C-alpha cells in the first residue's frame, strides 16, 4: 500500500507519554488483580502498584502539553471553543484519550491516596484506604482498570487511526500490542520494586514473574501479527534497517521476561531482567513511533 501522508513529528515527548501512560495503566490493572485475587499477602504489592500507577501518570499530561504547538491551549482538547460545548469526538482517539486520561487521573489519584495512607506515608486519607479494600473498592478499582487499560490501548489506536505507513497498516494489532507490552513492563517494574522492598511478599514476586511471562508471550504473539500485517501491506521494510538495533532491545526484553524463572536467570543480578524488560517496552514504542515517520 502506498502512502503519501506527511509525518506529524510526534517524537520524544510522545514516546515518553506512551511509555509512562502504559506503565501507569498497566500498574493500576495489576494492583487491582493483586488486591482482589484474594490473598492478603499480595496487599503490599498492590499498594506499590497503585502508588506506581499515579507517579507514572503525573508526567503524562505534562509531556502531552509540552508537545502541543500551543501548550496554553491544552484545554481545547476538552472544550470546543467554537461553540462553547464539550469537545468530545468518538471518531478521534486523541479526543477519547484526552477524556480517558482525565477520568483515569481521578481513579489513579484516589487509589494512590488510599495506598499512601496504608503504607503510612499520609495518614489523613486512611478512610479512603479502608474504603478501597471493600466491595466499593472492588468496583472502584475495576472501573479504574478499564480506564487504565484504555490508556494503554488507545495510544496504539491513535497511531492506527491515521494514514501513515506502518501505523495505519497495523490496523487492529497496535492497540493490543501496546496493552500487552504495558502489562509486561508494569509487571517487570513491580518486580523490580518488590525486590527492593522488604515488605513485599516473596511469593507475590514469584507470581509477578509468572504474570510477566504470560504477558510477554501475549506481546510476542501480537508483535508477530504486527509484522505479518506490515508484510501484507508491503511496508515491513520501514521497521527494519537501522531499526534492528531497537528490535534487539525488544527481543532482549521479551527474553528477559520469558526467562525470569529459569535457572540461568536466577544467577543474574535481580534487577537485570526487569530493567531489560522495561527497556524493551520503551524500545518497542520508539520503534513504532520513529520508524513510520522517517
Amino acid at each position, binding site marked *: 500500500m502506498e502512502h*503519501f501522508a*506527511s509525518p506529524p513529528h510526534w517524537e520524544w515527548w510522545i514516546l515518553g507519554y506512551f511509555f509512562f501512560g502504559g506503565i501507569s495503566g498497566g500498574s493500576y490493572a495489576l494492583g487491582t488483580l493483586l488486591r482482589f*485475587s484474594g490473598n492478603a499477602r499480595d496487599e503490599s504489592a498492590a499498594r506499590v502498584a497503585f502508588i506506581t500507577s499515579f507517579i507514572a501518570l503525573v508526567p503524562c499530561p505534562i509531556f502531552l502539553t509540552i508537545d502541543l504547538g500551543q501548550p496554553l*491551549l491544552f484545554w481545547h482538547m476538552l472544550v470546543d471553543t467554537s461553540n462553547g460545548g464539550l469537545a468530545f469526538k468518538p471518531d478521534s482517539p486523541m479526543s477519547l484519550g484526552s477524556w480517558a486520561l482525565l477520568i483515569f487521573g481521578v481513579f489513579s489519584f484516589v487509589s494512590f491516596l488510599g495506598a499512601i495512607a496504608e503504607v503510612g506515608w499520609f495518614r489523613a486519607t486512611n478512610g479512603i484506604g479502608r474504603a478501597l479494600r471493600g466491595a466499593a473498592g472492588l468496583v472502584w478499582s475495576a472501573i479504574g482498570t478499564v480506564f487504565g487499560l484504555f490508556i494503554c490501548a488507545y495510544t496504539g489506536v491513535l497511531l492506527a*487511526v491515521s*494514514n501513515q505507513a506502518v501505523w495505519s497498516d497495523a490496523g487492529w494489532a497496535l*492497540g493490543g500490542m501496546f496493552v500487552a507490552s504495558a502489562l509486561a513492563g508494569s509487571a517487570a517494574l513491580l518486580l523490580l520494586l518488590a525486590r527492593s522492598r522488604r515488605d513485599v511478599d516473596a511469593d507475590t514476586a514469584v507470581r509477578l514473574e509468572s504474570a510477566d511471562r504470560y504477558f510477554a508471550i501475549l506481546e510476542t504473539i501480537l508483535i508477530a501479527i504486527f509484522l505479518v500485517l506490515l508484510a501484507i501491506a508491503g511496508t515491513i521494510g520501514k521497521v527494519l534497517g537501522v531499526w534492528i538495533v531497537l528490535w534487539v532491545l525488544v527481543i532482549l526484553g521479551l527474553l528477559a521476561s520469558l526467562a525470569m524463572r529459569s535457572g540461568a536467570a536466577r544467577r543474574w543480578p535481580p534487577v537485570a531482567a526487569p530493567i531489560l524488560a522495561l527497556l524493551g517496552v520503551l524500545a518497542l514504542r520508539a520503534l513504532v513511533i520513529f520508524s513510520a515517520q522517517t
Partner: protein
Amino acid sequence: MGFFTDTSICIGCKACEVACKEWNQLQGDPAKFTADSYDNTGQLDAQNWRHVQFIEQVPDNNGVVFNPTPIAGGQAWLMMSDVCKHCKNASCMEVCPTNALMRTEYDTVYIQNDVCNGCRNCISACPYGVIGFNEEKGIAQKCTLCYDRLQGGLQPACAKACPTESIKFGYIDDLHKVADDRLANLKTQGYAKAQLYGRDEKVYGGLNAFFLLMDKPEVYKLPSEANATLPSRNNLPGYVGGVATAVVGLIAGLLAFRSGRMNANNNTTTTPR
C-alpha cells in the same frame, strides 16, 4: 465551491504558488536544491498551500534522437498544481480533537487558527500530505480556498493568477461538466491514460478540488481509489484488538496470581523478604 485543476494544460510557471503566497502572506520555506526537476518547493506544507509538481517521464532512447521525437503530446513532462482537496469525507476533520477543522458554508475545509492547539493529529491523517505545522504560530496550516476572498466575492488567488486556466474555480456541478467535456475531448485525441480524479464519490466521497490527470494517480503522489481510505477504518478493529488483548491479559494475570498462590500455599518454607 471548488477547484478543477486540469493538469493537461499546466505549463509549470508557478504563478499559482506565487499568488497564493502573496495573498496569504506566506514566507515560503528557505530555497533549497531538491534534485527533483524544476521543483524547489518540495511539498505542500504550512508555507506552501499550492505546489507545482514536475514529473519527468522522458524515455531513455539510448542516445538515439528520433525525429519527430516520440515524446510529443504533453505526456513526457507532467505538471500538476497540487492543493488541499477539500475532501467531502475529510480525514483531517475526522481526527481533529478540538474541532478546529471545520466545514465552511462553501463546503470547503478550513482550520480555525484560534481553536487549533497544534496537536498535529490532522497531519498524521491527511492522505495527501497537505497540512503542515507552522513553527512560528504553533498551529497547523493549509489552503483555505481563500475563504476571505470568497467572502469578498473574489475568486481564489491561484485560480485568478493561472495564465492557462489550468486552475478553474466555480460551482462544483459546473466544474464537473467542464471536466467531463475536457476528458471526452482528450480521449478522442487519443490520450488513453487521461482520467478524472476525485470527480465522483469513489475518492473520499468526492473532492471539492478535483483533477484531470494524464497518468495514474500514484504518479502524482495521489492514492488510488483502492488506497483512498479514511483513518476511522481502524477505529473499531483497533479498539476490538485492544479490548481482546486486555481481556486475555487480565485472565493471564489472574491465572498467574492464583496458580502462584496454590503453589505458595503448598510451599511452607517460603518466608517474606
